């Protein structure tokens, strides 16, 4: 990496510092205390999460980042109540979380729309389950669909939508329940770069306009910095909190900030944390490396690609 003169990622402009001070005065929505999760497998028990502590404040946008297999999905699934945990506590508005519920919306990486329901009916499901009448549910669903800009597709089936559109429906579906917190597990991971950038814009726009706290999992550093107020960095084996970074990039965000000094400083810090300099050789020793021999025919027309 080219060495640039960058400020420290800890340097915050007065406005940013003031914003964080105010943010931390807001009520705590989600509190995670000493969360530990082990999986019992045939090969023995695996500690996926170890002593995780953090809290999110109202209308905060938290990104969780970390190397593959560090337990990001496990963390967010535990918060959603889809996995139970071995020890520790997960508190939503001060009350312990037991099992999944409509107060925590979730958007999955895979498209989990119900294929037999139209877009509108997908968004309506939560409302129906909450006991809303059919007409009320329909009316409300259409508002959420409008919010994600899919009014024209309200009566389409999921297989008729593109990946980005599907995820927008998933977001609308989760938001329709008006959850306290929106949990997102690499929701844009399967999208191409352009669609992904667009979706990030939509998400920030939605977040700005409604009272929602977001916990967003990603492995894309730029995505994390661009979206988050704070970034929770995990490390693998076992999954532990490495650092909770306050992103010094001022809000509201726009794509031009991607090259600002604060942005780059934060990115450099994340890279240090996630790809520490020594790690490469360590992995090489463990054998996690391509084992290549030259397999080009001796009489090949192009001997070397360089």
């Amino acid at each position: 990496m080219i060495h640039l003169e960058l400020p420290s990622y800890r340097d915050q402009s007065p406005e940013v510092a003031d914003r964080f001070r105010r943010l931390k005065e807001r009520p705590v929505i989600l509190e995670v205390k000493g969360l530990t999760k082990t999986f019992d497998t045939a090969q023995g028990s695996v500690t996926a999460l170890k002593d995780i502590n953090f809290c999110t404040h109202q209308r905060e946008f938290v990104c969780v980042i970390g190397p593959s297999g560090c337990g990001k999905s496990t963390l967010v699934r535990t918060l959603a109540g889809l996995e139970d945990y071995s020890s520790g506590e997960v508190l939503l508005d001060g009350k312990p979380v037991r099992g999944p519920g409509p107060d925590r919306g979730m958007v999955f990486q895979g498209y989990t729309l119900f294929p037999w329901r139209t877009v509108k009916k997908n968004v309506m499901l939560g409302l129906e389950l909450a006991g809303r009448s059919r007409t009320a549910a329909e009316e409300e669903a259409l508002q959420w669909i409008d919010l994600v800009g899919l009014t024209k597709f309200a009566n389409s089936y999921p297989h008729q939508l593109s990946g980005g559109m599907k995820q927008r429906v998933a977001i609308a579906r989760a938001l329709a329940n008006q959850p306290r917190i929106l949990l997102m597990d690499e929701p844009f991971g399967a999208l191409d770069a352009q669609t992904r950038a667009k979706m990030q814009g939509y998400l920030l726009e939605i977040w700005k306009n409604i009272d929602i706290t977001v916990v967003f999992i990603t492995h894309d550093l730029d995505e994390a910095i661009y979206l988050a107020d704070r970034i929770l960095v995990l490390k693998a084996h076992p999954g532990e909190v490495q650092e909770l970074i306050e992103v010094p990039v001022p809000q509201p965000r726009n794509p031009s900030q991607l090259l600002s000094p604060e942005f780059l400083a934060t990115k450099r810090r994340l890279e240090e944390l996630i790809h520490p300099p020594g790690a490469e050789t360590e992995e090489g020793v463990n054998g996690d490396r391509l084992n290549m021999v030259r397999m080009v025919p001796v009489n090949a027309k192009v001997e070397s690609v360089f």
Partner: protein
Amino acid sequence: MNKPWFAVRKELSSRRRTFLAVMSFVFPLLVWSLVSYVPFIWHPQVEVIEAGEVDYFRAGMLVDRTVFEQERETLRAEGRELPTGTRTNPVYLPAPHEVATALYTAFSTEPQRRNEKWLHESLANSIQVIFWGFFLSSLIGVPLGILAGTYVAVSRLTEPFVEFFRYLPAPAFGALAVAILGIHDAPKIAIIFIGTFFQQVLVVANTTRKLDPSLLEAAMTLGARNAGLLFKVVIPGIASDLYRDMRILLGWAWTYLIVAEMIGASSGITWFITQQARYKNFDNVFAAILIIGIIGLTTDLILAWLGRRLFPWQRAARA
């Protein structure tokens, strides 16, 4: 534009599909016609026209070709009157046109004995037995299968026994069913039920288990639990696969018909077939078999068509 006929998993144009579907019937029919109308392909017997001086030959009698030739040789050597005949197929392989005629006459011929039924009566009876057997089986089997596929407790409580019972051949219960249920339609329905039910529970349970678990998780994060999950996600989620299973199971139910109709007071289409075979009316036998095939195929086509109407979201999802 000349697309290849053989491309792995690529759809053909609808004209080609129809053409191939027609050919799938034309080919067997062609083989049958060749064997029936071209004498030198098979025709292992000779129909005697004039008996000549063979004392046991009668006009219209069918004899093996070798026997016929032998008799001719002996008579020729003795210089006596030779028998004449034409080569034919055995009586159990009627020609297409004979079966075609039988398709009509089988319906219009009066039964040979008073206690026997007309073909259409036999058919109606069979369809009734199938319907009730399959209906009653589904009434219990489908809900049980769905519950077993959803709740591990139900699965553990039912499936080991069902798995065991599935291996007991349904026909073995024939005598028992007659002893308990009498000799009329009830034991026949019971046989269809036994033959279908146990497979049905397992098949439905498996289909239910194949529902993408992430859909269940998504629904749970939307607030679905227990009944809501079952009725709003599990059942609509498997409905289209369930429908396909039912089409296949209905086919199986037909195969148990043969057994069912042989027990108690014999009746129905398969009994009709057995009777006709006994009278050596093989054209009627073939006609009746064809009718079963036609009924089966038509029901399945109607069900497939209905399925496309019922599950519009499936169509493009599959392609």
